[in-house]
């Protein structure tokens, strides 16, 4: 799994950082998504998919 993030559409709601703090953080300045590990370990893949679903602005996706 590889995570893609688009900070231009991110609205900083924080759902990703709330759902999988090991993989997602938010920038200090704008609060937009920061991907800490774009190839998450297998045991976190389900949680990452949940974060993708919860994202209100469609800023994160997985391929």
């Amino acid at each position, binding site marked *: 799994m590889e995570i893609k993030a688009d900070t231009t559409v991110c*609205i*900083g*709601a*924080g759902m990703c*950082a*709330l*759902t999988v*703090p090991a993989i997602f*953080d*938010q*920038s*200090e*300045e*704008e*609060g*937009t998504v920061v991907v800490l590990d774009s190839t998450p370990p297998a045991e976190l893949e389900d949680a990452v998919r*949940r974060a993708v*679903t*919860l994202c*209100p*602005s*469609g800023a994160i996706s997985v391929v």
Partner: protein
Amino acid sequence: MSDLTLTTTRQRPFDPPDEIAELREQTPIHRMTYADGHLGWIVTSYAAARAILADARFSNRPELMHPLIPARMELAGDQALRVPPGFFLRMDAPEHTRYRKLLTGQFTVRRMKELEPRIAEITDSCLDAMEAAAKPVDLVQEFALPIPSLVICELLGVPYEDRAQFQEDTKVLVNLEIKAEDAMGAMTRISAYLYGLIQRKRAKPEDDLLSGLIENGELNDEELTGVAFLLLVAGHETTANMLGLGTYALLTNPAQLALMRDDPSAVENGVEELLRYLTIIHLGPVRSALADVEIEGRLIKAGESVAIHLPVANRDPSRFPDGDALDLTRPATGHLTFGHGIHQCLGQQLARAEMRIAYPALLRRFPGLRLAISPEEVPMRSDMSIYGVHRLPVTW
């Protein structure tokens, strides 16, 4: 024409109106007549609600919107409903984006985590005052309102001792039966107060969010006033009603109350479930189509207004099985209580932190907490745009 109009009157305090809930199984995108005679739509399914809230072809600009209820009609033609500078909730991208990006850094998960010790202190001091007061006490005045009010005032840098007037004016703004001139008066008073506060902070900055925004230099004083207005009002009326209504719901569901009180591992999801089950935004949001859009076989034409009924959508059994039941252990994330799409609540992580601290702290401090009136006597906020309880007399 459609005979259906929107009501906020309920048959039971925690359940959305039956006549709207029934739509969801039959016609989740249904015709509805707005207060000005406009034939628009009401949406009650989870999937359609989520899709529309995330779709940029639906605008949130007030001048495109038809009023849902008669009291709002008086306001609709009025200049009062033009968006004040900085009031980004009612803007579309890219105007909205410019304001929101200035603020999101202040409301991140991490920032809110850093605030937790202070929220716990504020909660404890409110509980101390409640314990010292003569029983019965009104939980709204002693607990539900002061906690979020103190927190948002401190965060923004609004002196808490000034609260009497802006709390009163906020109540006017969310009252569904209010006259246009009274709403205008309340808006003008809050704006004038905040404009003055911003002038004072510009002269003498402090360590708070508004001072930080002033220092940033991106916004002028009128825009800063609009932003401060939005954050102050939103920070007051939302969590306060969740704490009041949520406590009432727990007091009438003892097994759920025991979970919230006794099982720390149940708190996080329990708060999500209370948000879902109670969905205090019971009138709108409304969006207006900027183009013809087909959703689930229905053609919504450009210019038509669409009311999203969040309380009914959040109980959609295809997303939340047995959705009419309060169950603190069910998977409740994904609810639409904070909205969805670009306007999803900016302060949601703050609201979560406040609720995760306040509910268990209250229930542990007063293990014998109970209603001081019979449940059916609790005055419900069917007359306000944000649902909740007007008062909650409790004893222990």
